[in-house]
């Protein structure tokens, strides 16, 4: 049973909400008391209505099973000057009739028993255009953002995780046009294997991949209050795809090695021929010196 955000004593964050978009969870709420009932949990969520005109504060509440929830909006101390503040609770366009009112807070009590009760509930301060929204949702499922790349004939393992909440069941399916194709492992046991690695994690193993297995796969987690999906993309490549860069690099290596060895061979040849020339000159010199009658035994040593 989790709530989001953290308690804080700061004032409103009105401006920030307007610039950052509607999904921002509020930073002000008071953690309420929890009462564990025998078959359902009960929690209170409070929100402080912002002090800036035309702004809205939002809060995401995740529920995975039936619960009793109390949502309440507390009026900011800025508005104590108003004589008769009016707050309306709405769900979509539908106004909720009965709510509890205390000195400066308005709250509604909801019994969330099934999917139909989930959604967005908002409280609006009349005349001032200030509101707060509570989004009651099923837990989100994490698939994978980047595609998984596998090769033909190989095995692919696709993983979906649920954080914090344990789904009742997992199912996998693919979408073909507008049709949902369920991945039935009992039908094709050699192709698919669905494994529940742990309470919150599911694995789909696809064996003997072909290019037809390429595409998007959806994992669906069923909770008491509804279903939630995660997406995993699979890309199946043929082995030729990495083979081309591989061969290119191998060719480059062979070329470089050949160049290095050829350069060495030729520079050695040049050295040798230069030395032979030198020797030749030395011999010539010796001959000329001998003929000149000079005994130069020191020059006799030959360098090899």
């Amino acid at each position, binding site marked *: 049973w989790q709530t989001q955000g953290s308690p804080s004593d700061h004032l409103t964050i009105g401006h920030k909400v307007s610039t950052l978009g509607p999904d921002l969870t509020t930073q002000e709420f008071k953690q309420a008391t929890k009462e564990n009932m025998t078959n359902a949990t009960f929690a209170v969520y409070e929100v402080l209505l912002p002090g800036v005109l035309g702004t809205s504060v939002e809060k995401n509440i995740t529920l995975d099973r039936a619960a009793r929830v109390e949502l309440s909006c507390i009026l900011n101390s800025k508005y104590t000057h108003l004589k008769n503040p009016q707050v309306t609770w709405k769900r979509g366009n539908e106004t909720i009739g009965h709510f509890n009112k205390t000195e400066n807070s308005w709250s509604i009590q909801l019994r969330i028993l099934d999917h139909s009760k989930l959604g967005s509930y908002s409280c609006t301060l009349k005349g001032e255009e200030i509101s707060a929204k509570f989004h009651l949702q099923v837990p989100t499922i994490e698939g994978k953002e980047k595609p*998984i*790349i596998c090769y033909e004939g190989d095995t692919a393992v696709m993983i979906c995780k649920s954080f914090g909440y344990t789904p009742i069941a997992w199912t996998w399916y693919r979408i073909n046009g507008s049709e949902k194709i369920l991945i039935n492992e009992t039908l094709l046991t050699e192709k698919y294997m669905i494994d529940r690695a742990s309470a919150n994690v599911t*694995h789909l193993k696809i064996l003997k991949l072909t290019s037809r297995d390429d595409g998007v796969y959806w994992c669906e987690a069923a909770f008491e209050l509804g279903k939630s999906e995660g997406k995993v993309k699979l890309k199946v490549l043929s082995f030729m*795809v*990495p083979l081309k860069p*591989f061969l290119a690099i191998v060719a480059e290596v062979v070329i470089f090695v050949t160049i290095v060895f050829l350069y060495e061979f030729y520079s050695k040849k040049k050295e040798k021929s230069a030395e032979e020339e030198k020797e030749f000159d030395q011999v010539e010199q010796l001959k000329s010196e001998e003929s000149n009658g000079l005994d130069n035994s020191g020059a006799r040593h030959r360098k090899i």
Partner: protein
Amino acid sequence: PPPANAGRAPGPPDGGWGWVVVLGAFVSIGFAYAFPKGLAIFFKEIQDFFGTSYSEIAWVSSIMLATTYGAGPISSILVNRYGSRPVVMFGGLLCGIGMVSASFCTSILQLYICVGFITGFGLALNLQPSVIIIGKYFLKRRPIANGLAMAGSPVMLCTLAPLNQFLFDNFGWRGSFLILGAILLNCCVAGALFRPIGAATASVKTQETEEGKDALKEEIAKDAMEMNRPTDVPMETEVEEEGGKDCCEKVNQYLDFSLFKHRGFLIYLIGNVLMFLGFFAPIVFLAPYAKHTGIDEYSSAFLLSILAIVDMFARPITGIIANSKWVRPRIQYFFSFSITFNGTCHLLCPLASGYTGLVIYSIFFGLAFGMVCAMLFETLMDLVGAARFTSAVGLVTIVECCTILLGPPIGGTLIDTFGDYKYMFIKCGAVMVLAGTFLFIMNYYNYRMLAKEEKERKAKEEDPKSVRTENEGRNNWNKENAQDGPELEPLSEERELKKEVNGT
């Protein structure tokens, strides 16, 4: 009779083709160090694919690292026998084969073998010979050459990380491994650049045709002495077997275990083994520590990028500083200082507050890390000399292998036990400061002993009764080295070789 030019030792070129060799070593060393780290990008996907836990996948990296360091002695033996070039080319080929076969793996065990052992072994055959050949090509400018070559590691890491991500997004892990196998074949190109140094091979060819076999052996022995390289082993062993050679000497021909009696080597070994206990853990845990203090994932990863970039520049600059005439004779002190500096950074890290503090820590850590790495092999070369370095590096890496593997897990255990990262930083910092201080003190003692031995040796040589004819070549080598640091040990090997040649 062999020519009379055998008296003058030419010495390493210190330039020319040497810079091309540095480029090759840059690539080779870069792959050897950066590749295991770059693989981490694929782990999540492989983990999902095989359905294993994270620690089982992390073993792939550990096995690879262990093999790269543990196969050091084998690498040394092969280089002693065949020279750097064939070993590096074979290593590159092995890496390529390892990764290509890894792309077809169907179980995690096969990955351990293909990626861990085969590729790891190939990288080991890349790392050691690259470091060794720098010692053969450079003497006076060796620290610069070492610094530049070691800079390959951060550069390759910065290149491989986004490249791996790109390959993964486009080809999945199997295709990426295939292409990485091809990329690793570039180590063969690097190896092709490692032209064997010294005229020994050339003179063998020309002389075979002209003179007899005995004279040939003597020539090789003399050339080897001049170049300070062990002789062409196949010839020697034939002769020695006939002569009933001592088995210890034979083993020492392949891998010089007599190094364990070498004072400088032992100091280096103990100091480095201690240092590595705290060397790698901070890098492994920097990003998780940043996330732990509330920094978001991208900024945490960025800290490592800062570290790599600073490291990239720190290495060549350290090489240049280490080469200067003030530092080179006392390079061991500089090395001890950089280790202590590194340790101090870690000790101060827990005091860093907020993102700015961590950025400053990353900058200093990158600097210190680069300084230590640039001089890691240079100091060993300085202590044992280029000839014995081949065996030294192999022995050092296999002993370091244990502590390198233990470092991060011990750090991890500390973090898990206390729930706080600061104890890990304190442990790493303390260990490194201890190692740095130990090295500083012991090297001070070593320098003094070497100076004393040098004086004694000079006194003996003045004496006319000493074996002057043998020492002709040795004196020249001695004079060349005296100004560059204590490298008197290689001479004992020379004397050994002479004895063997004279004995046949």
